[in-house]
Every structure is written in C-alpha cells, then in structure tokens.
C-alpha cells in the first residue's frame, strides 16, 4: 500500500512463477490417476474424477435452485453446438440412472434451423438437418424441429407475458418431490422408465421459398453484425417460446456456459441492456411469465465442455452461425469475446470473476413501480421497460424526441402499404390520428420504437434499408461502447422501413399503441369529468359513462367522418 518514503521506481521483486501442472503429478482428487485435463488454475483431474466433477456440477446447479419440479415438462433448446449437446447428454444420462439420483422431469428437445439467416444453401441445410435428426433419434426424447422462417406465422400473443402461478416455496418443492416419489413407489418400477419416445413431432413441413426469401430479406436489411446477432437471438427466443407454449412446456433449458455468460454480461453492458443483466445472465429468467428459461450449464466453462464432449464422445452437429469466420471487430459480441478470452489466457480467473459478479445481481423492480404492477414491457425482449419517456433531459428523451420527422409528410398516405396507425381496422371508430397534438402517433416506426427498451431501440435503428447509422460505425472501431448523441440519429436522412419485420411484431405494436390511446382518452375524459362536475357525484358518473362508451365524444365523430 502507499507509504511515505516508498520508492516506486524499484521493480517489485519477482517471486517464483506458480508451479505449472505437469504429467508427473497425480490427479488432485483421487491422487492416483493420470491427469488428463487442467481445470481452473492448476487443478489436474484424471478422466474419471473429471467426469464425476462435471456431472456433479450439473446436478448441483439444478438441485440448489429447486426450480424444476418433478414431472414437469422441460423443453431443451438444442442448437447442435457443444454446450447444448452436452446438456442434452447430461439430461439423458441423468434420466436413466438408478432411482435415487434420477432426474425427474419430462424432457423434449427443440432444434431451430437458422440456415436461412446465415445464408446457408438448401443442400447444406438439408444435410445439417439430417445429422441433427440422427442425434435426436439416438437421444430418444420427443423432438421438435422448427425453421426460423416460422416466425412469419407467429401470433402476436407470443409477445405477451402470461401470468402464472406463484413459484412454490422451499416447502412446496420438497412436498412435490416426496409426493412424486410416493406415487412412483405405488405404481412400480416399470412405469419409471424414460418417457417413451412419442411419435416425433417433427416439423410442419419445409418452409416455403417465399418465407425463406422474406427471412433473407430481413437479415440482409440489417447492416451491422451486432444488430443481426441481436435480432437472431430475439427471433429465436420468440420461436422457442411459442413451441414451449404450444406443447405445454413450462420450462426451457438453454445450454449457456459460464464463458458464454461472462461474455454476454459484458456485451449486454455495451449494448445498453445493463438494466436486464440479472435476467439475461442469471440461472432463471421469468420474464415471459408462464415459461421460465433456465440455464443449467452456467457453471461449466467452455473448456470443460469441450473436454467432456471429446473424452466421452458426446455427439454434436456443427451449424454455421451469422458470425462464422467474422473478423474480430465485426460486432460488439466478437470484440467482447476476444477481449474476455485474451484476458482469460493471462489471468485465468477472469471468467469466473465475471461469473461470480453476475451471481450477485438481484432482480429488483424499478423504483416507483408498485409491487404487482410492473409497468409496460419491451415489445421485443419483454423485459420491463427501462425508459422514462417523460424525462427529456436524458439521452433517451432526446433520442425519442429526435424521432419526430423533420417535416410533416402526409404520413397516412405514404405509409399506406405498410402498417398504418391511422387505420384501426377493428370496426370501432377510434381516433388514433392526433396530428395536432402528437405527430409521432402517426408514424408507425415511432409507434414501435416507443414500446422498446433502450437496447432494443438502438438495435432497431440498424434496421435500415440505406446505410448503417454513423454512431454504430464508430462503435465498431472502438471498444464497442455505444454513446448515443441526439444529433446523429440520422432519422432525417434515412427513413428506415419496418416492412421486413415479421407481422406479429408490427401487429402487437399496433395493438398496444391503440390500447394506450384508448386508455389515455379514458383518463382524459375522467379528468374532464372530475373538473367539470363539482356538485355531486351523479354528473361525474354520467360523464364517466359517456367517456367510457365509445361513440360519445366529438373527437370520435371526427374519426367517424374521416373513415
């Protein structure tokens, strides 16, 4: 520490370098076996001890969190990659063990074919699918293969958070386990076998060429790799969520490893998603309500996963991704990954330190929100919005106000081929177009943007048919920290198009903004009624009724004239 008189010019005395593990040592666990792998900073394990260590970690993560109840249907999200393949294998082995230690949930597998987004040729996609099917048949769980093109037929309800029963307490978990065991003792051992592979769900049929083309168009319209990766992740999440809801799965397990989550944490910070770190990197993610995403591999490093897969022959399928062979500075994700891995090479505790920090993150409701009314959610990532649209002093407020079109084009006509906010299409003559009060309400792009969190808004800006926004180009060159300055939003130069987005997103955006409009109108009516009707409550009630009923306001009549 700093002391008076300490001379900083002398180099610190170099201590002996830490002893490197070598083959002559024995396994640190059993002290007998020949070590094959070095875990952490210098612990050499032999093959058998490594297997025990690896499997134990998987069980311990599931066991200590006590979120997966016995008999529950769990969907395993398998990408073909090493981590999710390893997870699949762990579940397979866990279900077939002797009854004391057996895993107790009912698994299914979903595989998303993302070839169209990555520019794979149809032949390559077919080849990958054939390999995937082989593995799925070996594993034997009910499986669902979905193509990313199916996002074009998703319903808007996938973006809504469904209420679910409150999670059980400790007591409830123990009681559930006990009753499950009791039932099975009564039923006998025969019924305890692995869930028999039902007729595989397979897929609805190969995607149409039109859908594939629409998906390619969507991804080609995104100019930066960062936004592409984020978009792919968002769409994939929605698709898997839909599969889970359709088939009655209440949990989804993803194979995110410790290394990947450490990179994801840092990347999320750079992307402006700091408010949601606990959900993005924690063990459980309940943002969707009825389906909880769980990450059982979060304590395994990529090195451990790779070694396990090699030593114990875990099958996996190689699928190219949007960032395959991309150079290091191509996206914020790549940059952060290179940063962390390089640091890890010299300081082997980097990944575990970042991981331990992520464990300490607590999911707290936003200040000012009453418990039970969490507030509006982001349209795309479904986290509770971290924006304060009313606060124009912040970068957000400036960003939002910069969305105002510089001129006032006849927005209704110009946007007619795409989603138009002015056309309610619901049969109720609802006044949506308030040009005089709030010009933004007419611009569908502003409608969508206003419903997004900060990180998703910044991504949306790159959905441009022209060139990338200038701030993002600079961001690629630096450390990837994106600082938004209001002047460079570029919205006046390049009018981005929402056309390529899948229809469910636009439909839900429209629905929400119409609902917000209706609520606002009711609020205003109530305020007027309160102000106007001083004497007695009856006239206030009368005005309230008038306001709530559509068809009683003068604005309503204007709308009726306009239609």
């Amino acid at each position, binding site marked *: 520490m700093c002391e008076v008189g300490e001379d900083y010019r002398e180099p610190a005395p170099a201590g002996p370098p830490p002893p*490197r*593990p*070598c*083959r002559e040592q024995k396994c640190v666990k059993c002290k007998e076996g020949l*070590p*094959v*792998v*070095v875990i952490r900073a210098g612990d*050499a394990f032999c093959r058998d001890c490594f297997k025990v260590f690896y499997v134990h970690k998987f069980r311990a993560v599931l066991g200590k969190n006590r979120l997966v109840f016995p008999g529950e249907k769990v969907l395993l999200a398998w*990408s*073909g*990659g*090493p*981590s*999710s393949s390893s997870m699949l294998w762990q579940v397979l082995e866990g279900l077939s063990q002797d009854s004391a230690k057996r895993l107790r949930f009912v698994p299914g597998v979903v595989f998303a074919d993302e070839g169209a987004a990555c520019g794979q040729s149809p032949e390559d996609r077919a080849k990958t699918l054939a390999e995937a099917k082989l593995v799925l048949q070996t594993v034997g769980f009910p499986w669902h293969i979905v193509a990313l093109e199916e996002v074009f037929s998703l319903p808007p309800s996938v973006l809504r958070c469904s209420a679910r029963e409150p999670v059980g307490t400790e007591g409830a978990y123990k009681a559930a386990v006990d009753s499950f065991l009791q039932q099975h003792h009564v039923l006998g051992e025969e019924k305890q076998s692995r869930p028999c592979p039902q007729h595989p769900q397979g897929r609805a049929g190969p995607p149409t060429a039109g859908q594939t083309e629409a998906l390619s168009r969507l991804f080609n319209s995104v100019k930066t790799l960062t936004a592409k990766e984020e978009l792919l992740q968002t769409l994939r999440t929605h698709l898997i969520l839909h599969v889970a809801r359709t088939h009655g799965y209440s949990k989804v397990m993803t*194979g*995110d*490893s410790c*290394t*990947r989550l450490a990179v994801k944490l840092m990347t999320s910070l750079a992307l402006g998603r700091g408010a949601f770190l606990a959900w993005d990197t924690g063990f459980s993610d309940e943002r969707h309500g009825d389906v909880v995403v769980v990450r059982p591999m979060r304590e395994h490093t*990529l*090195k451990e*996963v*790779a*070694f396990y897969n*090699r*030593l114990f022959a875990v099958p*996996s399928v*190689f*699928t*190219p*991704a949007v960032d*395959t*062979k991309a*150079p*290091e500075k191509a996206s914020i994700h790549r940059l952060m*990954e*290179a940063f962390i*891995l*390089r640091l*890890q*090479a010299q300081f082997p505790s980097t990944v575990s330190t970042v991981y331990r920090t992520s464990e300490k993150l607590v999911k707290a409701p936003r200040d000012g929100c009453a418990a039970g009314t969490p507030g509006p959610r982001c349209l795309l990532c479904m986290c509770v919005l971290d924006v304060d649209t009313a606060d124009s002093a912040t970068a957000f407020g400036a960003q939002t106000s910069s969305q105002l079109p510089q001129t006032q084009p006849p927005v209704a006509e110009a946007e007619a081929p795409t989603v138009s906010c002015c056309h309610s299409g619901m049969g109720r003559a609802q006044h949506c177009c308030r040009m005089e009060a709030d010009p933004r309400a007419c611009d569908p792009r502003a409608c969508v943007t206003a419903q997004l969190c900060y990180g998703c808004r910044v991504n949306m800006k790159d959905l441009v048919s022209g060139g990338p926004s200038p701030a993002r180009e600079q961001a690629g060159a630096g450390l990837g920290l994106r600082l938004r300055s209001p002047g460079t939003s570029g919205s006046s130069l390049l009018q981005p198009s929402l056309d390529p987005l899948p229809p469910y997103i636009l439909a839900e955006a429209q629905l929400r903004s119409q609902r917000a409009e209706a609520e606002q109108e009711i609020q205003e009516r109530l305020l007027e009624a309160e102000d106007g009707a001083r004497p007695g409550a009856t006239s206030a009630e009368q005005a309230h009724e008038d306001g709530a009923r559509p068809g009683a306001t003068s604005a309503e009549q204007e709308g009726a004239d306009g239609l």
Partner: protein
Amino acid sequence: MAAPLSVQVEFGGGAELLFDGVKKHQVTLPGQEEPWDIRNLLVWIKKNLLKERPELFIRGDSVRPGILVLINDADWELLGELDYQLQDQDSILFISTLHGG
C-alpha cells in the same frame, strides 16, 4: 537434429472450416535441424495446412485464445504447452470453443 515424424493432426469445434472442412490430417513432418515441438508444428501448419484466415487460428507464436490443444487426448497444459516435444504417432487435436453454444 530431428528425424522425420508422422503425426495425426485433427481439428474440431469449427476449426476445420479453416482447413477446407477436413478434420483429420495424417502428416509427415520432415527432418530438420530444430527438434519438433508444438511451436514449430504451428508454424508448419500455418504454412502447409491452413487455407485461410490465419488470424482466426494463430496469434503470435501460439494458438488464438479460445482454441484448446489436446495431445494424445490430454490437456497440453500438462505437457508443457508450446514446448512439448513431438513424438512419432502422436495425435494433436485442436478444438475451437468459440463457435456454437
């Protein structure tokens, strides 16, 4: 003075994309003045096997962080990493952990 060696070099986890998709290579390293260690092997691979994007495989005189090296199915950290002296019929496996999830 090193005698010629015959070793098997294997790539996995996506690293094979840089080698024309070929996972296993049986190679014969020619005799040379310096002994064959992993360091020299990497130089040889870069010159003779690597088809594209060397920066995705090699960084400086070692492999890029994120690529694991297994020598005869054992972690190279146990065997001296770059200084391990190759022997005849050794099997060296490079697994990229950077791809997929």
